């Protein structure tokens, strides 16, 4: 009599382990299917990602605040300690900048006069949106940050993201209240740039290291070490002339660029609206404009 329930129990247990094994294999298969889907339907996957990031954004916003204020406190203590030396340094810098100011004033006046002579039209006006960095993610595989503003604040795909120092990256995925920014160091980042002194055009390609590389330089181009790299404004996505970094090394491994913006120091950043749609406008936004104005390609 005692044999039967034990047998039933054993059969039940083996069925359960079998089911669990199937579930496990099914889930691994589902994960691989997700990867394929990410390759096949980029837009769908990006939308899912934007929704998930949107959902977590308030938590991230909340969690990143104490860290930021702790960092501020440490900075303040450090500033107190270095008050005297900092003051000396600033006095020297001020003297130097006053000379620069005189030069800049002279050039500005000259520039204005020449522009009026030539009837020169300056480029598009730019607007800024300020935002806070609420997530810094990716490890060795992807370099991106998340901002606490989104579509409802007017962020659009492809806009340039800058700090006072220089270009940080471009807007890659826009949710309703969060924005993912692809940093210039990410493997997928390609930015049209100019070498400032020689005006040679190139593409700045991220490679998941701290120093992205210059590629597609014209064969004759000479790139001296220490030269500044700026955005070229080609492709109509970024305003021209945003500083990105300096040439750190020139060698067989390519030309490495050290960006001005430090990833760990990113806290408040600006999103530039340049007034151009460029090549990166998201298809989701094109639909209303197409139905509204048939025949006009934006």
């Amino acid at each position, binding site marked *: 009599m005692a044999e039967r329930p034990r047998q039933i129990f054993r059969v039940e247990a083996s069925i359960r382990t079998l089911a*669990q094994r199937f*579930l*496990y294999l099914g*889930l*691994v298969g*589902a*994960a*691989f*299917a*997700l*990867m394929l*889907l*990410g*390759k096949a339907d980029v837009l769908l*996957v990006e939308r*899912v*990602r934007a929704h*998930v*990031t949107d959902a*977590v954004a308030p*938590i*991230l916003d909340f*969690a*990143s605040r104490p*860290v*930021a204020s702790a*960092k501020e406190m440490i900075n303040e203590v450090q500033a107190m300690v270095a008050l005297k030396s900092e003051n000396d340094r600033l006095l020297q810098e001020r003297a130097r900048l006053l000379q620069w100011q005189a030069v800049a004033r002279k050039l500005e006046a000259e520039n204005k006069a020449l522009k009026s002579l030539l009837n020169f039209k300056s480029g598009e006006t730019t607007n800024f949106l300020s935002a806070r*960095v*609420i*997530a*810094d*993610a*990716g*490890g*060795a*595989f*992807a*370099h*991106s*940050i*998340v901002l606490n503003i989104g579509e409802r604040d007017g962020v659009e795909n492809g806009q340039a993201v800058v700090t006072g120092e220089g270009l940080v990256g471009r807007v890659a995925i826009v949710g309703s209240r969060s924005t*993912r920014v*692809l940093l210039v160091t990410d*493997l*997928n980042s390609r930015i049209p740039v100019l070498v400032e002194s020689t005006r040679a055009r190139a593409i700045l390609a991220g*490679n*998941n*290291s*701290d120093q992205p590389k210059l590629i597609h330089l014209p064969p004759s181009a000479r790139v001296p070490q220490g030269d500044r790299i700026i955005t070229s404004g080609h492709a109509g996505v970024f305003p021209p002339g945003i500083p990105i970094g300096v040439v750190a090394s020139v060698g067989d491994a390519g030309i490495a660029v050290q960006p001005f913006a*430090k*990833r*760990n*120091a*990113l*806290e408040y950043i600006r999103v530039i609206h340049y007034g151009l749609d460029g090549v990166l406008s998201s298809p989701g936004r094109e639909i209303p404009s197409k139905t509204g104005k048939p025949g006009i390609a934006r």
Partner: protein
Amino acid sequence: MKTAFWQRLDLWARQLTPFGLTLVLVILSVVPLHVPGFARVAPLLALMAVYHWSVFYPSLLPAYAVFAVGVLQDCLAGTALGVNAVVLLVAYGIVLSQRRFLVEKSFFVVWFGFAIVAALAMSVSWALVSVISVTLIDAEVLIFQYLLTLGVYPVMCWFFQRWQQAFLNTE
């Protein structure tokens, strides 16, 4: 009747904490810490949590929960969707098949087991990301990340054990 209901709810809430805690760790791991160079080598907190719970309480962290954790991590970290899901499921599968060598052993055995599982998991993620992006990803950073993850594990292990004592051992 009423106390039974509240007791069941209490038990249910306690049993959900391993999964909840793992989700919280995923979210915390992307909070910017403003430490130079840290974001690139940030320790893999989610992997530690999945390892720990699958060694000690596999019934409280079923495979679909591991899958959900992986997908959330992919969404937040910006890696291709599915990569971390596969990596965490692989780690989970390895642990479950080798569990009898790990339970009720000294801490160092568990730590050593984690070292092996983490090495395998990171190799899998390196291979997957390299295939997806059609380039060989620089592995030097991964080694630092691996060492940091190993170094942080004892701290997290202590924390998880405290958590176990506080929330799970009262059954």
